C-alpha cells in the first residue's frame, strides 16, 4: 500500500486524503486516478455546452452535509457515514468528478430493502448543504432486493448566497433486483450560486420496474448524467423529467436508456423551460444492443421558451443495433400558444396568470407520473415562484 503524500497534491488545494481511509485500496486507487486527471473541458463532447471554469476550486473547503430522513418506519434505511464495501456501479475513471467521488465521498444514505420487503410509507430524504465556499463529494445508494418495493423522495437543498461559490459532486446509484419496484422522485433545488455535477446510474434487472422522476430547478450551472441499464427480460423504466432554467442558470441533462437485454421497455418524457437568459439543455440517447430484440423504447423532449434571451438545446439520439424493435423519439421547442393566451385574456385572466396556468399544465403532466400529489403541488408552487422572480 502506497503512502499518500498530501503535500504534492494540487487538484484542489483544500482537498486532502483522510487518514482513516489509508487502508482502503479502492479509495486510494481512485484518489490516484483523480490526481492523474484534469477537469473536463469544453472540447470533450459531454461538456461542450458548459463548464465550471469560473469556479475558484482552491478557495473551497470540504463540507459534510446535513441529512434528514422522514419515514415513519425507518425500515431498511441507514444513513451511513462509514465506508461501503459495495462495488460501485459508476466507475471512478469516467472523469475527475467520478474519481473524486469514489475516493472521498461519504454515503449520504443507503436505502436497502431486503427480499420481498415492502416499504409502504414514502421514504423522504432531505439533504441540506451548507454551500458557503464549500465542496461536497457525496453519494446516495438505493438497493432493492428481489421483489422488494419502495417509494423514495430525495431532495437536495441549499440556501442561495449570491457572492459565494460552492461545488456539489453527487452520485446516485440504484440497483433493482428481479421483480423489484421503485418509485423515485429526485428534486434538485440548490441555491443559484451552486455548481452541481451528478452522475446517476440505475441497474434494472429482470421484471423490475423503475419509475424515476427527476426535477431540476436550482443551481447556477448543473450537469447531470442520468443512465438506466435494462439488464433482464421484462425490465421497465419510466423516466420523467422536469427542468426550468431562469436568469443566470444553465441546466444541462444527459439521459441514457441502455437496452442490454431482450424484451425490456423504457419510456422517457422530459419537459424543459427557459426564462430570462436561462439555458436549458437536454441530450438523450436510446442505445439498443444487438441482443436486445423486441425492445420497446421511447424518448420525448418538449420545451417551452419563455424569453427572447433564453436558450434551449435538445439533442435526442438513437443507436439501434437490433432490428426487431420499436423505437422512436420526438423533440419540440415552442413558445406559449398565442391562441390560448388570447382566449384566457378574453375570459378576464391576465397574461401573466394565463402563462402560469399554461406552464402548470405543461409540467403537471410529467410530475403526475410520480404519483405523489403533495410533491406535485409543492413543486408547481416553486415553479410559479421562479416564474414570478424571472418575469420582470
Amino acid at each position, binding site marked *: 500500500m502506497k503512502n499518500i503524500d498530501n503535500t504534492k497534491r494540487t487538484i484542489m488545494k483544500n482537498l486532502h486524503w483522510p487518514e482513516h481511509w489509508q487502508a482502503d485500496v479502492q479509495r486510494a486507487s481512485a484518489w490516484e486516478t483523480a490526481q492523474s486527471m484534469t477537469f473536463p473541458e469544453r*472540447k470533450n*463532447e459531454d461538456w461542450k455546452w458548459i463548464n465550471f471554469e469560473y469556479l475558484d476550486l482552491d478557495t473551497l473547503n470540504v463540507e459534510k452535509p446535513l441529512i434528514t430522513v422522514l419515514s415513519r418506519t425507518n425500515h431498511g434505511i441507514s444513513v451511513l457515514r462509514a465506508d461501503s464495501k459495495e462495488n460501485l456501479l459508476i466507475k471512478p475513471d469516467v472523469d475527475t468528478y467520478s474519481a473524486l467521488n469514489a475516493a472521498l465521498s461519504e454515503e449520504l444514505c443507503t436505502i436497502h430493502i431486503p427480499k420481498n420487503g415492502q416499504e409502504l410509507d414514502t421514504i423522504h430524504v432531505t439533504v441540506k448543504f451548507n454551500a458557503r465556499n464549500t465542496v461536497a463529494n457525496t453519494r446516495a445508494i438505493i438497493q432493492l432486493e428481489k421483489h422488494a418495493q419502495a417509494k423514495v423522495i430525495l431532495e437536495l437543498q441549499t440556501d442561495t448566497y449570491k457572492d459565494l461559490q460552492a461545488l456539489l459532486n453527487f452520485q446516485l446509484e440504484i440497483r433493482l433486483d428481479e421483480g423489484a419496484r421503485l418509485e423515485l422522485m429526485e428534486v434538485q433545488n440548490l441555491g443559484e450560486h451552486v455548481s452541481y455535477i451528478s452522475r446517476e446510474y440505475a441497474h434494472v434487472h429482470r421484471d423490475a420496474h423503475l419509475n424515476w422522476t427527476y426535477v431540476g430547478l436550482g443551481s447556477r450551472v448543473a450537469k447531470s448524467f442520468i443512465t438506466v441499464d435494462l439488464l433482464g427480460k421484462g425490465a421497465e423504466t419510466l423516466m420523467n423529467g422536469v427542468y426550468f432554467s431562469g436568469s443566470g442558470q444553465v441546466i444541462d441533462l444527459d439521459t441514457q436508456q441502455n437496452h442490454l437485454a431482450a424484451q425490456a421497455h423504457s419510456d422517457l418524457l422530459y419537459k424543459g423551460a427557459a426564462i430570462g437568459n436561462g439555458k436549458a439543455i437536454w441530450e438523450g440517447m436510446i442505445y439498443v444492443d*444487438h441482443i436486445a*430484440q423486441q425492445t420497446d423504447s421511447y424518448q420525448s423532449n418538449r*420545451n417551452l*421558451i*419563455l*424569453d*427572447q*434571451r*433564453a*436558450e*434551449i*438545446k*435538445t*439533442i*435526442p*439520439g*438513437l*443507436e*439501434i*443495433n*437490433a*432490428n*426487431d*424493435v*420499436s*423505437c*422512436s*423519439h*420526438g*423533440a*419540440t*421547442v*415552442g*413558445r406559449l400558444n398565442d391562441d390560448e393566451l388570447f382566449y384566457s385574456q378574453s375570459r378576464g385572466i391576465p397574461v401573466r396568470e394565463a402563462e402560469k396556468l399554461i406552464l402548470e399544465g405543461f409540467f403537471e403532466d410529467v410530475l403526475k407520473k410520480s404519483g405523489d400529489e403533495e410533491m406535485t403541488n409543492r413543486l408547481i408552487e416553486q415553479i410559479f415562484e421562479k416564474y414570478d422572480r424571472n418575469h420582470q
Partner: protein
Amino acid sequence: MSDQNKQSFLNQFGADYQYGFSDPDIASFRAEKGLTRDIVRQISAFKEEPEWMLNLRLKAYDHYIKRPMPGWGPDISDLDLDNIYYYVRPPEINQRSWDDVPDTIKNTFDKLGIPEAEQKFLAGVGAQYDSEMVYHSIQENLEKQGVIFLSIENGLKEYPDLFREHFGKVVPIQDNKFSALNTAVWSGGSFVYVPKGVKVDLPLQAYFRLNNPNLGQFERTLIIADEGSQVHYVEGCTAPTYTEDSFHSGVIEIIVKKNARVRYSTIQNWSTNVYNLVTQRAAVYENGTMEWVDANLGSKVTMKYPSCYLYGEGAHGEMLSVAFAGPEQIQDAGSKMIHFASNTSSKITSKSISRGNGRSSYRGLVRVANGLEKINSNVVCDALLLDPESASDTYPTIDIRSDDVNIGHEASVSRIGEEQLFYLNSRGLTDEEATTMIVSGFIEPLVKELPMEYAIEMNRLIQLQMIGSVG
C-alpha cells in the same frame, strides 16, 4: 481491397455489377502521392491560375495541415491521406464535341448512358472524368438566356470577377479540415450562373466518376442563382471497382439570391472502398428556396450534411434524403438548417435503410440565432433495419436562441412488418421480391422528386443492393 472484400463487394451488387469496370489508366499527368505546398503550386500552375487563387490554395493548405481530424462521427482512421494522388489530369481537356472524346472515355460513358444525355430533353452536360471536365455541352437556348454552365476551371478563366466574388464565401477555408483540403487541391466540378429572372426548365447534369486507383477526387462546384431565377442541378455518380482505398472530398457552394429557387440532386454510388467526405452548403437570401435531394447508396464511409444558411427573411430550406447502408458500409448523412433571419422555415426528411452489418446514421442540426421571429422547422427521420446485423443511429441537435419558434423533430426505427411480408407472399411474391417492393415504397417520396432517367437508375440500384438480402 483484399480478395475477400472484393468478393463481398461483388456479391453485394450481384457478381455481374454492371458498373464494375475499370478502364486502362490513360491519365497523362499525376502529381506525387501525398500533399505538399509544392504540389499545390503545381496544380495551380498547370491550371494557369491567377495569383489570388494560388494564394488562397496555399492558405487553405496551411489550415488543412493545422486542423485535426474530426473528433466525432464514424471511424475514418484507415484513411491514409499520405497515400493519395492529389491531382491527375487526363490527356485531352474540355472537348466541345462528342466526336472528339477519346474512345476509352466514350466507352465508359456509354455504359453510364451519357449519349442519352445528349438528347433534347437534357439541358446540358458537363461530364467529369478523373479530375477535369472532358466533355461539355450546353443547349443553345440556354446560352442565349445567358446561363453559364462551364467547368469550374473555365469559370475562373472566363468570368474571373464573378468567380472571385463568390468562390469560398459560402464554405470558407476554416469551415472544416476537408473543405480546407478541397480548397487547396480542387480540380474539376461545375460553374453555374443563372441570370436574373431566368428559369432553366430542364435539369443541368454533370456525371462524373473516378478512374484511377488511389485517386482523390476533389471536385468543386459553384452555383449562383441570381434574383428570381430557377435551376435544378443533378449530380450522379457511379464508380468502378478498385484495388485500394479511394477518397472523394468535394465542396459544393450554392448562392440562392432573392426570390430564386435552386434544387440540387445527388445520387451517390461510389464503390464500397471510397471514403466520401463532402461539404455541401447553400446561402439562401430573401424569399429564396433551396432544396437538396440526396441519395447515398455507395461508398465505404460517407460523411455528408448538406446545409442551408437562411440569411434572408422568408427563405426556405429543404432536405430530402435516402441512405442505403449495405454490408461494410457506413452512411453518416444528415443536414443542417441554420436560421439567421425571421420568417424562415426549414424541413428535413431523412430515410435510411440498413442491411447486413451496414450502419446508417442521421446526424443533423437545426439552429435558430437569437432575436428572430416566426421560425418554423420540422425534421422527420425514418429508419428501416432489414436484418439483425444492421444498425441505425439518429443524432439530431436542436439549438434554439429565439422564443418565437415552432420546432419539431421525430424519428422512428422499425423493421419490415411480418404482416406486410405475409400479405405480399400470399399474392405470390417471394420474400426477396416483397422486401424489394417494400423498400422501393419506403424511398418513393425521394425517387419521385428525381428526373425520370435518374428515378429509373435509382430503382435499379436499389434492386441491385437488395440482391441476396433475404435468406
